[in-house]
């Protein structure tokens, strides 16, 4: 294989693919990138077995061929090179990168051992704006657990129909749901699949303000085509049944409050310092014109703070794991966030006015689980203010 790239093209291609690699010792080739040169350009491919990334690079190809080389080393090399043309040649099991007067020789592994790009299957195809998909992922992926034995939770539920794309993620304590309308839909019926979160996180990073994404979903795979970047992601699907999330979202509420996002988040940050250790919980007391934010760690001390809000209903209290609230406030796009409460033990829903198609949900900590706190009655307050 002989191909010449601009350094910038090669660097951005490596940047787009190098995070979908695996350092697993069982298959060392997964830490490599695959170059596939044909007469008109070069495909750069990576995989961690769960997902694949492929980017088409502009290149002058003198000799077609396929080769793999370590992603991290390639990234380090190309980053270090001057801004000039980079020539890539292979000979036997060796790859040579030449730029200006710099020559690198690299060990390679045979491209035949690189996992094959899975065959395409028929399914449904939708087209959406990249910015829309980015918003959907931002509003949901925060709710995914870092690790969970329930494998279905390690992915996001993606539901596609002719007029709706909905993404949901949850760890059982918090949930994010967001939806949008596709600009185009091809295929028949509806699809509901679970896409691994790790791949979605990488896709989210590549999405920009411009351009569209074509999403093809079949029974075993999902393919994201970002045409403007000549970038394709393919991911396997997680097998299993996603929890019935609709039943968790309350249909009616007894309280609806407008909270200043940044001020409340700041108070939560302070309270977190002395939060109770077992549940990481802090207590929010809602009273006339203010929220009291309180934390008490029996080992370390306590904190009390107040944030002014527009509220004149009956006072009530809720306890939360501060991490979950942080996660929601971090992704909320508006300066004001609406909190909707049914009762102290029911999930609390947050929405933002600028994005009626997204909602965040957090399970409160039960008061009687906290030392020194009296159990609240089931209802948050009298009357129906929803």
């Amino acid at each position, binding site marked *: 294989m002989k191909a010449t790239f601009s350094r910038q093209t090669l660097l951005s291609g490596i940047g787009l693919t190098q995070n979908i690699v695996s350092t697993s010792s*069982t*298959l060392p*080739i*997964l830490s490599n990138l695959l170059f596939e040169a044909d007469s008109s350009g070069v495909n750069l491919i990576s*995989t961690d*077995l*769960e997902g694949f990334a492929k980017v088409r690079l502009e290149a002058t190809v003198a000799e077609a061929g396929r080769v793999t080389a370590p992603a991290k080393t390639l990234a380090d090399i190309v980053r270090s090179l001057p801004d000039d043309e980079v020539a890539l040649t292979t000979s036997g*099991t*060796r790859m040579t990168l030449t730029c200006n007067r710099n020559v690198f*020789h690299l*060990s*390679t*592994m*045979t491209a*035949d*051992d690189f*996992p*094959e790009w*899975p065959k395409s299957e028929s399914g449904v195809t939708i087209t959406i704006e990249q910015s829309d998909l980015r918003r959907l992922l931002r509003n949901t992926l925060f709710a995914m657990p870092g690790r969970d*034995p329930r*494998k279905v939770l*390690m992915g996001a539920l993606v539901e596609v129909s002719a007029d709706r794309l909905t993404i949901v993620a949850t760890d059982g304590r918090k949930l994010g749901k967001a939806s949008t309308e596709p600009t185009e839909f091809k295929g028949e019926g509806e699809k509901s699949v679970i896409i*691994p979160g790790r791949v979605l996180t990488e896709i989210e990073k590549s999405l920009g303000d411009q351009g569209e994404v074509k999403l093809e979903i079949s029974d*075993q795979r999902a393919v994201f085509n970002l045409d403007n970047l000549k970038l394709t992601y393919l991911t*396997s*699907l*997680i*097998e*299993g049944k996603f929890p019935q999330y609709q039943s968790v979202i309350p249909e009616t509420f007894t309280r609806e409050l407008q909270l200043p996002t940044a001020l409340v988040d700041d108070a939560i940050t302070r309270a977190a310092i002395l939060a109770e250790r077992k549940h990481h919980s802090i207590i929010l007391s809602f009273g006339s014109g203010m929220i009291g934010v309180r934390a008490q760690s029996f080992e370390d001390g306590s904190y009390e703070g107040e944030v002014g809000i527009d509220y004149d209903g009956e006072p009530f209290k809720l306890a939360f794991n501060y991490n979950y609230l942080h996660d929601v406030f971090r992704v909320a796009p508006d300066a004001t966030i609406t909190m909707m409460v049914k009762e102290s033990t029911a999930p609390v829903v947050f929405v933002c006015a600028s994005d009626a198609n997204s909602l965040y949900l957090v399970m409160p900590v039960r008061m009687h689980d906290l030392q020194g706190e009296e159990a609240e009655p089931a209802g948050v307050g009298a009357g129906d203010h929803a």
Partner: protein
Amino acid sequence: MTPAIATAPEIDPDRKLTFDRIVGHRTTVEFLTQSIKESRLPHAIALAGPDGVGKKTLAWALVREIVSGGEDSTSHRGSAKVARGTHPDILVCDNSGSPSGQIVIEQIREADDFTATSPLESPKKIIFISPAERMNPAAANCLLKLLEEPPRHVVIILTCVEPAALLPTIRSRCAVLRLEPVAPEDLEAWLLAESGEAQSRVSLAVRLAEGRPGRAMAIVRGKLLEQRGSILREISLLKTDGFAGIFGVADRLSQLDKDMASTLSILAVLLRDALAIRIGAGHALNEDLTDELAELAAGLSPEGMLRAATLATEAVGETPRYYTPQSRAHFLEVLVSRVGQELRGR
């Protein structure tokens, strides 16, 4: 100067064969071939049998057959990838890199994660656990969860010497296939072709290997056949030296071959031969050593020799339990001491 870089992965000898080249085990191979053909392969298969009988070789041939999806596994691209150890749909849990010699829960958790998504190139994802009896309790319980709700796109293959060493709950969820010893004529024909060694040497190895192709190959390729004289001399020392000689004999025996089971199986056969000569019953397997064996047997009680031979035979089966150098050394010292006691008459 540019470095020469070798990058092609070496082929693991256990993965070299496809079903058509497996020696013996015809019933098992036919059962598995038919099951794959009729898409009714059990989701978990435990291949059981003594060391060297061919569990891993057969298991890898099965893996190659599964990934070939009904096509010819001798030429299938996926099958070749299995042989090279680069197939993306195979996950191996073994104890090769484990200081404790155990398969630990992290490995089984990784296997569990591995099952979350559908296979990429093969009809099934395959988890290969060997030796399965080396799973520690936490790992075994973790595997049990996977076996209780097996994803439909996954096959789990285990190998073990003795199924009884597995949790009963694991055993009951696997199709247990016992591998019987290979018939001597099949083994001899195979060993002659595969090893390229002389007929006499091959015949001797077959007689010593008890129907186990792996053991036969180890014997024919190793130095143990030449070292039978040394082993005999060590046994003779036990007749005379008593306790004083135990540590020296055990130490020298341990250095003969890295596979302790091979050394012990030869020790057992030599003791059996000496007994046969002593009581005038049949031929010695080690015909070439008849004189030396007769010399050893002189003055020994047949009952003591029988007990010593039995001890050595049982010890062969025990060897997989001792996988650290210290425990192996201790095991050998105790064995040598007991064999010596029996020979001298307790």
